[in-house]
């Protein structure tokens, strides 16, 4: 009887906490739906750059360029198999490497100058060494790995069909930055640093919502302080907390063997900018909630999105909806960490400088400003305006 009474009471309370119930049961379905939307509907695509240095070979008074034939064969292969790979040719190695470093291409394949000669030698059974092809890329990048696997398949298929020999090909893999030297732990540290900042979402939102919960917001409404001044003041402290959190995470990682490369100050800059953007996002969350309990429930939605779809926990490839000055705009791009993580990887893995991460910084600033404007407007409207 008592059990029945408790069940009835608990049921009534759950129903009356309507929004909490709805949010709790809708979180996982929402997550599945969002994953499908981002991952399946956006159809990831891979870009392969090929630098053909092949000089060709004379055979039966005819000039033959097997490198060029490989390129054409590869395009036909992609067309017939419909794999999501695009091949672009390049004539400048340095520019191509920069494109790969800036994630505008996923891998670079260099067809050597003696490629035709070696293929010819293998055809005639005169070969004294393997046919060398150079694959260049960020070895920590899953997009490179996928592109390289397909490229390897295409090239091997072509060489086998041309020479009728098994395994004449030797792939020389050249890693960019320190990507060839780092282990899994090193690979995940940049993402973990951003996760440290993402976690600010809760502390920043609760710091703001506490004023609503304690009703001290009434005192602020009665005073001359503006929503902008109040939220900025709270935000600055949260930025400091974010920096401390990042430094502590980094210190722990380094003490456990993380091989830190790149500019420390660029890391701090990115940590500060990401913290500001997360705090700006927290203003939106604060506008939607009235208590710390609500923050912990409602906050799970953006937290999971930021964790799993911004690239912080694992890499995500999304199709660009459009580009602005060559910078791809994706659905994930609405989440600020999706800009800071590649920038951080450029700095920490590719050892790149400030000039190389300017597009990410601009994107981060734009998103932050959008968050901030929406957040201040919504907070003012929900919690600070005259009713």
């Amino acid at each position, binding site marked *: 009887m008592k059990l029945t009474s408790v069940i009835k009471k608990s049921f009534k309370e759950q129903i009356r906490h309507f929004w909490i119930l709805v949010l709790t049961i809708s979180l996982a379905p929402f997550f599945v739906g969002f994953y499908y939307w981002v991952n399946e509907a956006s159809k990831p695509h891979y870009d392969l750059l090929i630098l053909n240095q092949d000089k060709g070979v004379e055979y039966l008074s005819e000039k033959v360029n097997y490198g060029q034939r490989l390129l054409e064969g590869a395009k036909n292969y992609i067309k017939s198999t419909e794999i999501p790979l695009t091949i672009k040719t390049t004539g400048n190695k340095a520019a191509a490497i920069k494109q790969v470093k800036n994630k505008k291409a996923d891998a670079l394949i260099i067809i050597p100058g003696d490629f035709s000669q070696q293929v010819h030698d293998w055809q005639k059974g005169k070969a004294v060494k393997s046919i060398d092809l150079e694959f260049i890329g960020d070895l920590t990048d899953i997009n490179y790995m996928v592109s390289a696997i397909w490229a390897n398949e295409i090239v091997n298929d072509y060489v086998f069909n041309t020479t009728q020999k098994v395994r004449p090909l030797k792939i020389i893999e050249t890693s960019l930055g320190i990507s060839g030297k780092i282990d899994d732990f090193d690979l995940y540290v940049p993402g973990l640093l951003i996760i440290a900042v993402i976690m600010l979402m809760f502390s920043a939102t609760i710091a703001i919502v506490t004023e609503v919960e*304690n*009703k*001290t917001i009434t005192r602020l409404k*009665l*005073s*001359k302080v503006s929503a902008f001044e109040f939220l900025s003041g709270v935000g600055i402290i949260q930025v400091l907390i974010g920096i401390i959190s990042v430094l502590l995470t980094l210190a722990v990682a380094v003490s456990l063997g993380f091989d830190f490369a790149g500019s420390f100050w660029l890391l701090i800059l990115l940590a500060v900018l990401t913290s500001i953007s997360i705090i700006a996002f927290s203003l939106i969350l604060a506008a939607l909630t009235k208590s710390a309990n609500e923050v912990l429930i409602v906050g799970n939605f953006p937290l999971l999105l930021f964790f799993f779809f911004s690239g912080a926990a694992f890499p995500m490839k999304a199709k660009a909806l459009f580009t602005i000055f060559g910078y791809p705009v994706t659905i994930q791009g609405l989440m600020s960490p999706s800009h800071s993580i590649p920038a951080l990887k450029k700095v920490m893995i590719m050892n790149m400088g400030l000039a190389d991460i300017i597009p990410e910084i601009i994107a981060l600033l734009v998103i932050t400003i959008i968050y901030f404007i929406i957040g201040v407007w919504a907070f003012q409207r929900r919690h600070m305006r*005259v*009713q």
Partner: protein
Amino acid sequence: MNSLFKMSQHLNERENIVIKVSNLKKTFGNLTAVDNLSFDVYKGEIFGFLGPNGAGKTTSINMICGLIEPTAGEVTILGNGSRKKTDIKTHIGFCPQENIFWPKLTCFEQLVFTGEMYGMTGKPARTRSKELLEWLGLQEKANVLAYKLSGGMKRRLNICLALIHDPEILILDEPEAGLDPQSRILVRNFIKTLAKEKTIILTTHNMDEAGRLADRVAIIDYGKLLLLDTPGNLKKSIGEGDILEIILDKDDQEHPGKMKDSLLQICDQVNLSGVSLMVRTKNMIESVSEITNRIKEHGFKINEMTMRENTLEDVFIHLTGRKLRQ
């Protein structure tokens, strides 16, 4: 001469109006919380808002402070109709019904912080904070976190927070609510002291509080203004003289109305409800023995008898026919 004096008095009042409330109305869905409220508050007076819980006092106060927007009507403060303007905010100090403070700040810290929010700079804010803590007997708690204070101390801190920016108008919503007798006397004296230099509006459902503190009292119920005058005039409005409250040993079932008629020959007002009898007359001391004799003549015994002056509760009962809802 007399009319000239009245005209000059009227002009003075107009000049001294600090708050003008005109046809103020607030509805929440189907509920009309405040209904066509109009009154003026003069400079330097203590204006009491008396009414039961749910009468619309706090809603009216929130509209005066600018915390909620009226559905209709207008509030003019110091001649300015827009309370959204930040310069008006500096003229009002509001002590809400609930104790609102930052629990993790000390008393001193939150006073300084609040002062700075009103545009005060560091040193004046600190000096003012110290003064207020001293005036309200909290100087020893200056460095104590607010959540550790007792209920009475929290209430006093709440008043300090309303006064930090030295406003011309102080609005106190139930200032004595939850106070122990000692703190109540302290706060009451403090309000009286403040009244010399500030205009004070206080809401209360405590008639004693309103009667003792207010220069004028507005009685409201169901959002409507029932009466507005000085406590003395309000009490007089329901009849002059003192009141004798008597508890009889039985009710008047045998000869209904006979005793009442007999008492009305010597008293101005007689109310009989069950065993409770209330009589009012101007010369109560002289009339008491005659009243008791007449009661006994009609076969009643007196179990209990109390003599008192008119109270604001009597006024409220007279106006509404019922007691103040607690």
